[in-house]
């Protein structure tokens, strides 16, 4: 073997040029990577920004200060006998129209929200003595006025707003009704509480089903299952379920829960069940990873002093894996909370104007509400949709944030 060395001349010009080229390529590649990340983040920022831009307005509402001269109004009500029924019989909407005409000029009922009369009703209910006085009551403005006041209206409405503004009758404030109300037909009056409660109930069902089952499955597979065909099938099933498109779960819910078992349509119970089946594999997979991350040496240690396999798991493995399992659970729940398609399949898209009282009541959930509102034609719904999206996002981001935090905090290297 003849092996003479023939050293490379690293200092030659050609070599130096080559090096310069290689470093340039290096910089370009690095920049491309940075650009990719920034582009993704920019998209996120754009998305969030545009939601904020549209949606923040949804949290405010415009009100008109209506001067009501009760004695002079066509209202016939006995201040000493104010009952719900009496109020219902008093034909307040008509009265309100008359009051509006008087206070704001003819044909000005259109300036008020269709539900403006409820403000007057509430004022009477709060203090029946008002009936003998002249009072200023803040009533919600019509959607067109509301939009115009926020700078996005038709010329007509803009004019009306100018007029009202000059008269000092217009005020804009935080729209509490949006946080406490439910679905409705008038964008100025809708709220998300109903859908939110529906989401809470659905998530509750999802959690109490998927968490124990998911954890139990993860424990079984990771700690006890012997390798045989049953375990194989379970594993394959779980991996597949984690990847099955969510809409298929909707089909499952539709044909099994609704058509076969005759569970109530549109109910949080069915929604929760469907989502639980979807979330369970996520928890199982996260759980298995968390359990796997518990070092075998801990199991050995416990077994070595005579702990039984069940004791090993419940005394040592599970407590140590819990943060990981919780992280996975939160992520799974966040996914379920944002899920829409399967719920459309089981009828959770109805008009439901009262918050559900329990898991078997018809309900809708936040994302479906967003979907429904996004289909609404009235312009006022655009900002409400975005506002609802903001609420949903805040929740999801908080959940994801919590998961990331938990993961970082408990990320343990043994």
């Amino acid at each position, binding site marked *: 073997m003849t092996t003479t060395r023939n050293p490379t001349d690293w200092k030659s010009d050609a070599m130096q040029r080559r090096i310069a080229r290689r470093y340039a390529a290096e910089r370009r590649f690095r920049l491309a990577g940075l650009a990719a990340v920034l582009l993704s983040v920019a998209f996120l920022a754009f998305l969030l920004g545009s939601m904020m831009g549209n949606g923040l307005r949804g949290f405010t509402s415009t009100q008109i200060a209506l001067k009501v001269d009760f004695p002079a109004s066509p209202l016939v009500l006995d201040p000493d006998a104010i009952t719900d029924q009496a109020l219902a019989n008093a034909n307040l909407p008509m009265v309100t129209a008359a009051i509006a005409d008087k206070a704001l000029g003819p044909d000005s009922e259109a300036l008020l929200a*269709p539900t403006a009369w409820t403000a007057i009703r509430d004022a009477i209910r709060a203090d029946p003595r008002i009936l003998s006085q002249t009072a200023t009551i803040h009533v919600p403005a019509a959607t067109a006025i509301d939009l115009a006041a926020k700078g996005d209206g038709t010329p007509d409405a803009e004019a009306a707003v100018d007029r009202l503004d000059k008269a000092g009758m217009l005020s804009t404030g935080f729209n509490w009704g949006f946080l406490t109300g*439910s679905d409705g037909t008038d964008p100025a009056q809708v709220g998300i509480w109903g859908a939110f409660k529906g989401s809470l109930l659905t998530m509750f069902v999802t959690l109490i089903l998927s968490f124990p089952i998911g954890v139990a499955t993860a424990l079984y597979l990771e700690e006890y299952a012997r390798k045989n065909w049953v375990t194989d099938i379970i594993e394959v099933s779980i991996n597949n379920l984690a990847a099955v498109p969510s809409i298929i779960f909707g089909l499952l819910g539709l044909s099994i829960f609704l058509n076969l078992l005759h569970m109530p349509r549109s109910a949080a119970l069915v929604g929760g069940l469907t989502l639980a089946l979807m979330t369970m594999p996520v928890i199982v997979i996260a759980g298995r990873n968390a359990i796997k991350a518990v070092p075998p040496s801990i199991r050995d240690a416990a077994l070595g002093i005579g702990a039984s396999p069940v004791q090993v798991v419940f005394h040592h493995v599970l407590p140590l894996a819990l943060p990981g399992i919780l992280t996975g659970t939160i992520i799974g729940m966040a996914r379920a909370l944002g899920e829409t398609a399967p719920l459309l399949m089981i009828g959770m898209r*109805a008009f*439901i104007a009262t918050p559900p009282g329990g898991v078997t009541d018809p309900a809708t959930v936040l994302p479906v509400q967003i979907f429904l509102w996004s289909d609404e034609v009235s312009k006022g719904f655009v900002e409400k949709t975005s506002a609802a999206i903001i609420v949903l996002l805040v929740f999801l981001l908080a959940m994801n944030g919590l998961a990331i935090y938990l993961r970082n905090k408990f990320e343990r290297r043994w």
Partner: protein
Amino acid sequence: ACGDQAGGGASAGTRDQIRAVGSSTVYPFATAVAELFVQNNPGMKSPIIESTGTGGGMKLFCAGVGAQHPDIENASRRMKKSEFDQCQANGVKDIIEIQVGVDGLAFAEAKNGPGFKLTPKIVYEALAANPYGKGPNKAQTWKDVDPSLPAVAISVFGPPSTSGTRDSLAELILEKGCQSDEAMKALKEKDEDEYKATCTRVREDGKYVDSGENDNLIVQKLAANPNAVGVFGYSFLEENLDSLKDIPLSGVQATYDTVAKGEYPGARPLYIYVKKAHMQAIPGLQAYLDAFAANWGPGGALTKRGMVAATEEARKASADAVKNLTPLDGSALK
């Protein structure tokens, strides 16, 4: 033998709120009434209203009597004989028919659209799959159909086949246009099926865009596509006059008056159907109907939402039906 059926009664249980299904055209009025109903009947739960399309709703409505079946069907056309029969077969015996108002089948374009002027004949010739049975429709632009129209590609956004609006389109416009041809009239006598296929079948080459059950969506798409024509309920047009404009049919604009008077070719009645058997079992059902009746007159809450009030006469008949719960006579249906 059927004891176990009764035993599985958990779902046959109960319901303390009204459930309505059906037309997307009636949907906004039904929800509006639902709101009024809740406001006027404190303590009552809000009715649950699903927009499923008239046809889809009929299937649900006629599936049976009991808590798991809806109480009310919203319809943007009259119940068909076949549907009535299905109801009967499933034990839905007494059905109350209530006309709540009138709607126009509106044709509209975007505010900045070319300004179409249409007639039922033009619409038929533009949309039929097989105009006058003379082979597939070859018209590409409106100009191909009628020289007076602009040379923009035919693109019509309309409702799907389950919707009553689509049925109305077929019945009020397409058939009318089709019958401008004498041969077709003759065909009707001879072969009803053939006639139906020729006169009401809509082309499927993408010129007519089936836009889902939700009329709102059509409005939105229309606003974004200046050269397209949309077909939907008059109320939606009225709500969106800031972004859309009306297309006159045979020279008649769709307005409240023309629709109410029936001058506008696309006018059609809106109904709700109620199961008599549910009246006493579902709390508030009567009050809900009353709320409907209280608001369907001219100037009522519903007309403010874009519904056109029915004629005095029709309103009176409906009010009677609400009061007396007179069941529908199936033999009157087509």
